[in-house]
């Protein structure tokens, strides 16, 4: 039995603490598949999360993992990538974590465009804390805290990411694994910050946005959708009504943090750079 995540050879998955039937169970194997098909080495992959049900993902797959604080997945993730660009850094966490407590990091890391991938398990509810409204919960959704129904407009993460300037923005559904694997692979390969908002049924606490209700409404973007056309992306993102479009809304290359940073661009990874002591001596001398 190797239950300790030392499997550096392949992306094994481990026993989870999720509820039987949870949408998370469909996402984990997609991640595994995407990583495997991309031929990545587990020891070069770093999975980062905050706290929540989705945020346990790094505990369930054999790769390097960092589960930090609730809401604070992005800052350590981008910093780890800055420290060592050889790592494939993937943030995988909940929508409460990403857009609620962590909302400020969300918009500002889009601005940085560090080359990481952000998978958000969007179950439109706070799962681990037993079912309060999340930033994407619908108006009227009744919970133990929103006892008269949620009255705050839900965020549209896909639109928000576009408005904040993200270069790769997608939506997926845990129930469409084929599409999800492909989007995951594309997102990981995209050079820059890539957001995938993954609709994920929470069978324990979200009785509004169920598997069936998603299944009926999701609708992959058609081939006519041009993901390099910003206005098409905005239009798809703001589409209201019964259908929920899925797929890659927008994908254009933008200069990344690394390519723009004088210390990182065209240099070896930060972790491999050393500063010659003579340079420190120069600085000391500059004060004499």
């Amino acid at each position: 039995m190797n239950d300790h995540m030392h499997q550096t050879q392949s992306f094994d998955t481990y026993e989870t603490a999720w509820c039987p039937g949870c949408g998370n169970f469909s996402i984990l194997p997609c991640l595994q598949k995407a990583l495997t098909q991309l031929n990545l080495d587990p020891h070069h992959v770093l999975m980062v999360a905050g706290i929540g049900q989705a945020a346990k993902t790094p505990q369930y797959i054999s790769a390097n993992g960092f589960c930090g604080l609730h809401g604070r997945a992005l800052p350590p993730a981008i910093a780890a990538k800055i420290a060592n660009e050889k790592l494939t850094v993937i943030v995988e966490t909940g929508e409460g974590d990403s857009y609620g407590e962590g909302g400020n990091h969300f918009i500002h890391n889009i601005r940085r465009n560090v080359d990481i991938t952000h998978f958000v398990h969007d179950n439109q509810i706070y799962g681990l804390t037993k079912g309060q409204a999340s930033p994407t919960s619908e108006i009227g959704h009744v919970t133990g805290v929103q006892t008269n129904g949620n009255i705050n407009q839900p965020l549209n993460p896909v639109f928000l990411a576009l408005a904040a300037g993200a270069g790769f923005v997608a939506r997926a559904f845990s129930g469409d694994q084929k599409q999800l694997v492909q989007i995951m692979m594309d997102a990981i390969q995209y050079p820059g910050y890539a957001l995938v908002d993954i609709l994920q049924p929470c069978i324990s606490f979200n009785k509004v946005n169920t598997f069936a209700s998603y299944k009926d409404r999701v609708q992959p973007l058609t081939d006519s959708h041009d993901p390099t056309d910003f206005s098409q992306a905005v239009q798809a993102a703001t589409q209201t009504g019964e259908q929920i479009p899925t797929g890659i809304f927008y994908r254009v290359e933008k200069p990344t943090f690394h390519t723009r940073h004088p210390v990182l661009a065209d240099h070896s990874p930060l972790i491999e750079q050393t500063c010659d002591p003579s340079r420190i001596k120069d600085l000391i001398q500059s004060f004499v």
Partner: protein
Amino acid sequence: MTVNVLIGGAAGQGIDTAAAILEKILKQAGYHVFTVRDFMSRIRGGHNFIQIRFGSEPVHSHTHNLDLILALNEETISLHQAELSDNGLIVCDSTTHADDSRLLPLPLNEISKKLGNPRVAGSVAIGTLMALFGLSPELANPVLPSFLNEKYISINQKAVAEGYKLAQQRWSVPSGSCQDWMILSGNKALALGALAAGLKFYAAYPMSPSTGIMEYLAEQSTHCGIVVEQAEDEIAAINMAIGASFAGVRSMTGTSGGGFSLMVEALGLAGITETPLVVVDVQRPGPATGLPTRTEQSDLKFVVSASQGEFPRLVIAMRHHQDLFYQTIRAFNLAERYQIPVILLSDQYLADASATVLPFSLDNLTIETPVQPPEDISDYKRYQITESGVSPRVIPGDPRFLTTADSDEHDEWGRITESAEVRNQMVDKRMRKLDGLKRELEEPELIGDESCDILLVGWGSMYGPLQEAVATLNQEGQHHPGCVSALVFSDIFPLPTKRLTHIAGQARLIVNVEQNATGQIAGLIREYTGLACGRSLLKYDGRQMTGEEIVAGIRKIREVAYE
């Protein structure tokens, strides 16, 4: 003998550059220099001043006894003339109105206008001051280029030369031997320490009085190959620093108390994930926004117990510019050796003060690297239970092993656990690191003799004023009733208690001297030694106590105690 110069004016009048040039010239002349800066929290207008004190012997702090005032506006005179010695001088422009016999009105503005740039009046004044101090006018030439844009150098040189002609030597201060020393601000000394320690990543959000650290590091970013990232907030800053450290590069964050408040949760993250981390808190008066550009030592108790739950940490208070460099290096090594967060407490007084120091030495510099697991193991445990409490730390990317960290309680492999047994083992393991840490704590520095009647205790930046105060108080002789010594802590939490209990055992009275309202180190001392400070000297108006204020306070206490 020291000479104490005050340069005053409104924000935006350039007193900062004038002071920077003058202090460097004084150092080049060989003097020991200590400069303090008193700014208002505004960009233009208001009243700011800088005090430059210099002499042939080491100068440890500032004083309010002025020898010379360089007044760029009238307010400077009205606010400070009372502090000027009877035979002092007030250098000011000829147009200045002020009723003071010590006035030396000079055509500073007229000359600068003649030279073609009204902004060089400061340099004219520098020339005059050099003449008054009997310095060779050439001293300015190598200095000006470091502070001025190239195109302004020659006009400023002319200004200095013109100013030099306006006065005769008035002071003759024997020279020191600091020509080859450094002069730099506290923030820069700390930043330099971090660079020497191998810093690779600094994330911070601007906040006075800590911003100077970020600015200096950013300036050296390409020279030293480090990344300095301005975070969207302080929460991001510390979580970034933790992420970078986890990924294997030395990292640091810095802020003042308000930003530190936002970092509190992540301090515990570093604690439970055992990620080495250095956090700088450059203190200013609180609560909340308080007095943004002034000084205080009121975050001590806060930082020693900040964050929910319990985990080992080290808090080091900066006493002077040497500490700011060497203790910063040590902080990185101890953070790595024990895999803990180390908090550096500085304050506005030190951060903005410049001082002459012997060039920092890199001779004994060692940079610790993460403890590695034995080569032959197959089952790597990041949080292996060890006697020292320290476990092997593999960096992600290592082809031998994967590594996982979690803010939840976890087992030896870093996997979430709810087992009571494992929880106990993990708490004990983390806490055991304190045993080793405590063994290498540095005892406080003793100023004066081991046997004393009154023992002053202070910490951090109170070092300089205490140094001056003890010297003055013991002019009357060290071994008479009421003689005074001082202990000044740098390592402050865990509190090193050996030297304190030893010396306190012989003293009649302990007096804590602190820049806060509640006497915070007295509380720590009571808690960890049982010793009570019988009296306190406290100040909390945002202005650093001087040696004279301590002297006056202690004399009063002595009168009562030894009447």
